[in-house]
């Protein structure tokens, strides 16, 4: 196992950033730390990198006890949200930095820098200053810089957070493909569940300083451990004391299924190919339901109609938590 985190605690004053966190991150995989802002995921990443000190707990990287190792000795690659480019150095110099610190021979450095710039598609910008690059290019440069030292793990802190939506999506695909090529153990922090589901092999969901669930994107989506994970990974509605996805509710115009709940359509909105309904049940619950447009047309759904709702067979369902709405 590549990164082992045991019993990690971290407070900033009164604020509990990490609360007894245990995480194991597998070698060679792309792992996402997913959670809402302020949930502690960046703090965890920075502690793994050695940029922050934990109050208690231990970190080991590739079997090496690293808890008290300074960042400079951990051999991790770190990519910052705002790139942290060395503004006074050219792109090539930025990438060469870690190798120069390690006093590698000149021609080796040159060779490696050329190789990496090719990998991140910045060869033609080698002698420019970072200020002449776009945000996406800067982040790719930062990635090359982190990869140059052949780190045992690559850590990315909201790497695409500062980029606009289109570039973010492209870089996300690109990171996935890059990882398939390079296979370095990679951990990235994100608050965007779509990004995590799309890119990661494994996702660690973190909220309020605690690990809520660890699993593959499919596991998390299909078998959420609790209400929080479920609601964070997608839309959620409640039906008869259960939390489930709006598209996992079957809607009939007659009470043909056992245990179905009667209700009236109070609102109907068509958005592209899907139709979103709000159904007011006889128990006074407001339930969101998503059906396909064809389905809605076939059943002639309209506001004011009475319908019967049932959870679809095999739907991901968790009991509704008392506190959660």
């Amino acid at each position, binding site marked *: 196992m590549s990164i082992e985190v045991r019993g990690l605690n971290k407070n900033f004053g009164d604020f509990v950033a990490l609360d007894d966190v245990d995480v194991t991150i597998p070698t060679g995989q792309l792992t996402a730390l997913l959670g809402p802002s302020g949930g502690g995921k960046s703090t965890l990443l920075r502690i793994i*990198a*050695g*940029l922050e000190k934990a109050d208690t707990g231990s970190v080991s990287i590739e079997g090496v006890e690293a808890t008290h190792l*300074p*960042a*400079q*000795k*951990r*051999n*991790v*690659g*770190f990519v*910052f949200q*705002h790139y*942290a*480019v*060395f*503004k*006074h*150095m050219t792109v090539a110099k930025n990438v060469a*930095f*870690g190798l120069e*610190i*390690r006093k590698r021979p000149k021609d080796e450095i040159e060779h490696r820098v050329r190789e990496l710039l*090719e*990998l991140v*598609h910045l060869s033609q910008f080698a002698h420019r200053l970072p200020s*002449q*690059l*776009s*945000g*996406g*290019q800067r982040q790719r440069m*930062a990635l090359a*810089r*982190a990869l*140059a*030292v052949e780190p045992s793990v690559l850590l990315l802190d909201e790497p695409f957070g500062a*980029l606009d939506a*289109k*570039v973010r999506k*492209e*870089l996300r*695909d*690109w990171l996935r*493909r890059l990882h398939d*090529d390079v296979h370095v153990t990679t951990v990235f922090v994100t608050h965007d569940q779509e990004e995590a589901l799309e890119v990661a092999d494994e996702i660690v969901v973190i909220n309020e300083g605690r690990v809520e669930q660890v699993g593959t994107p499919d596991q998390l989506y299909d078998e959420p451990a609790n209400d929080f994970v479920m609601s964070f990974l997608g839309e959620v509605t409640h039906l008869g004391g259960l939390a489930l996805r709006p598209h996992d509710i079957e809607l009939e115009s007659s009470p043909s299924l056992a245990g179905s709940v009667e209700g009236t359509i109070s609102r109907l909105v068509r958005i592209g190919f899907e139709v979103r309904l709000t159904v007011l049940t006889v128990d006074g619950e407001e339930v969101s339901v998503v059906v396909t447009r064809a389905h809605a047309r076939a059943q002639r759904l309209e506001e004011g109609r009475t319908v019967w709702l049932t959870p679809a067979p095999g739907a991901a369902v968790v009991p509704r938590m008392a506190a959660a709405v």
Partner: protein
Amino acid sequence: MADTLVPEIVDAPPAEERRRPPRVRKTPVTYLMRFVVTAYLFFLVAWPVSLVATNTFANGFDSIRSLVEDPDMVVALQLSAYVAVWSVVINTLFGVGISLLLVRHEFPGKRLLNALLDIPLSVSPIVVGLALVLVYGGRNGWFGPFLLDAGFQVIFSTPGIIMATTFVALPLMIREIVPVLEEIGTEQEQAAESLGASGLQRFWRITLPSIKWGITYGVVLTLARSLGEFGAVKVVSGNVLGQTRTATLAVEEKYLNFDQQGAYATAFLLAMVSVACIVVVAIIRPKNHP
């Protein structure tokens, strides 16, 4: 190969940040203000300063020549330069140190230190001189007799002049570096750390290059201020001809001895240096702040 791996990423480099050109609505008020400001500066600064030049060269280059042929004057100019260089060196070293301390560390009394750093700018140079005499004065200062016994005379000697000059120019370097340090933040240093750079390497390779322009301005300003210090130096130097008389003291001395040509010539030299300093700053500054 790589081309198939990575699609063309559509993400253009940032266009040069375009500032909207100032829309100048030329009303009579605009011209009136322009005229008032220009006239004010002309009478207060431009004309008087230019008169020093004309007075200096009223007899051609004679006055400058007699200046550099006067051995006492040469000593005074050398002393001024020597003191200024020392003041720049000391203020640069400690200025960088204190700035790092102020920006990167939290400690009790930080706010107080930050406020006190401005004292040298707002306190009278005479008070500065007096303060140094009281502590380092050879006869009855707090530390003076002790230092004198150790064979180290501060007041009425060059170290005292250097101290006084360093004192008055102290905030200039710090006030230039602190904002730069605040702006660059710590991310670059952290990135260097994660790439394996030690503390010293981070300072030399990352921090120092980032603040080099701040330091440059600081050096220029400190130099100008140090060369020109008069009041504090007058108190601590003893003003001994050919020994502890700096160029600024010489200006006063010459003028009071009715050597107006000499006074103007010396003043002209000093003014040239300080004007050169601010012109240098004015020229290099925009490059760093696009």
